[in-house]
């Protein structure tokens, strides 16, 4: 009994610890930048904003914090949380720890949507809409192909994902080939490498709502996702509607991944390494894994975005840094897991 309480307490303690780390990461991130704002000013500006008060803080500081840094930090948090929980959930339903959120082609599809938007000189809003729609379309094609093959195994979905992903990469390559090299090609390439430099605050609000709804649904079915780890046949014998659970996870994960791609473009590694890291901390139970992945992913993304802002004179695309950090960290996590 004592042991049971101890384990539970450790899990709760971990959540509290991560919330504290997240809080300080946010403060640290909004403090850093070319324009200096003190910690006290940050709290006063936020207090004024919430209670519609006026503490006499200069407008420039308010604009920098509320118009630039805070939305950016919130965007990084939303994207980090989204990619991490959809990665964890996808790994659960496909029984494969090497699966990432773009497994069913959502990222590749979104890139094509954005590239088309850039080629046709749409404004940022419609580029995002196109990215979202093509991301969803790409997943629908994957699901359709797997149903068309009609082989009763989730391997079919894996194969369909590979087929669609490869096809989409070729389509993107073709769009890049016909794009104007001096303007459009650079924009497409920059978009596909991910950045929080130009976040749309309206889009963040939508993303927060989508994320909250999908997270609640995923959390409520988290124990059912665990049962898929026994394989489809055993899960069915245990009474699980495997198709329903899989479809719910695919819909929720695709929605939050596609939304997060609209905010910051495609960002690799987060959805792969954060669930791995979290699994080492709390085990495989998705009820514990999803909240821990969410918090760890949010913290990781804010740190990475802050680094892209402060390293060098020109802001670095996020995916470059997540790749530099992700690859060695992933190797380290595999070594830790093997040692365990």
């Amino acid at each position: 009994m004592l042991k049971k309480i101890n384990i539970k307490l450790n899990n709760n303690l971990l959540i509290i610890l991560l919330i504290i780390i997240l809080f300080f990461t946010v403060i640290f991130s909004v403090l850093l930048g070319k324009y200096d704002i003190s910690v006290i000013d940050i709290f006063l500006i936020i207090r004024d904003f919430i209670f519609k008060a006026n503490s006499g803080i200069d407008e420039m500081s308010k604009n920098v914090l509320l118009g630039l840094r805070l939305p950016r930090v919130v965007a990084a948090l939303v994207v980090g949380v989204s990619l991490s929980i959809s990665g964890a959930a996808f790994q659960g339903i496909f029984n494969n720890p090497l699966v990432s959120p773009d497994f069913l082609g959502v990222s590749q599809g979104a890139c094509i949507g954005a590239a088309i938007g850039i080629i046709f000189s749409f404004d940022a809003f419609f580029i995002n809409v196109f990215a979202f729609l093509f991301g969803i379309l790409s997943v629908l094609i994957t699901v359709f192909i797997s149903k068309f093959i009609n082989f009763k195994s989730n391997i079919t979905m894996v194969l369909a994902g590979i087929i669609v992903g490869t096809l989409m990469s070729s389509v993107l390559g073709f769009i890049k080939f016909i794009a104007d090299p001096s303007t459009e090609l650079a924009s497409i390439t920059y978009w596909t490498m991910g950045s929080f430099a130009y976040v749309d605050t309206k889009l963040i609000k939508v993303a927060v709502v989508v994320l909250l709804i999908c997270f609640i649904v995923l959390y409520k079915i988290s124990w059912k996702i665990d049962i898929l780890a026994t394989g489809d046949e055993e899960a069915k014998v245990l009474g699980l509607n495997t198709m329903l659970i899989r479809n719910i996870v695919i819909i929720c994960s695709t929605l939050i991944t596609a939304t997060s791609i609209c905010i910051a473009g495609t960002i690799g590694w987060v959805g792969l390494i954060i669930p791995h890291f979290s699994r080492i901390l709390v085990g495989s139970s998705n009820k514990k894994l999803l909240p821990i992945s969410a918090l760890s992913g949010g913290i990781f993304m804010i740190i990475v975005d802050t680094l892209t802002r402060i390293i060098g004179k020109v802001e670095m695309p996020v995916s470059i840094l997540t790749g530099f950090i992700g690859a060695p960290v992933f190797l380290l996590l595999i070594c830790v897991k093997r040692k365990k």
Partner: protein
Amino acid sequence: MNIYSIKNLSFSYNSERQIFKNANLLIEEGKLYSLLGKNGAGKSTLFSLLLNIRNDYSGQILFMDEEIKNISRKRLAKNIGFVPQIPKLSFDYTAKEYVAMGLLAETSLFTELNKRHYELVEEAFLKLEIEDLMEKSFFDLSGGEKQLVVIARSIVSNPRVILFDEPTAHLDIANQYKVLKIIKNLNSLGYTIIVSTHDPNQVTLLNKNVIILNGNGKIESGKTEDIINEENLKKIYSSDMIVENVKKFDRKICFFKNIS
């Protein structure tokens, strides 16, 4: 009461491989049945039909007098326990978390297990006297321990029947004996049991009823002492085996002649 009634069952994977042809079988409540057949005879296929995993057959399979195809997956899960040949698990869970999965049918889509359910999980461990394994990682368990935990999962929902698919196939002799002893104990507690094996000595050790699949598409059943003989074993395995009665244990032993 009959747990299963199979009437005129026919099933084939393709035109060349007919597994069952107008086969009939009755499984009575509270009895223990050994399902004997060589590799590929259809033991696992029969289980997948009895579990309603496959329903592309002709004929009738009744579960407690109801067409199995019409029974919901949850209702079947509550009433049928299953022990697979090799337990699959892609991610590591504690033995307790694993056994709790056996109570899935007690929950709805957005609900989870409550305190009472976890008491049932603990009872299942206690029933098999393996409570020391409860907090251990499933991946860290030995082959024998894993099989005991899987058995605990199969009994946690207190089902009417438990299907064991070659539960001793990957175990050493001591663990084989341990698992068979547990199976017999569970039967004495009232559980209806079907246990598949390709070893006739396990059938005689359990010494209850036997179902044989001899590859002609039919299912035969009867008392172990009537069915296990040299003639039937020849039909099943297409090779000569000696069957001798060991009076001291009142049990038949099956073995091959020396290799010459």
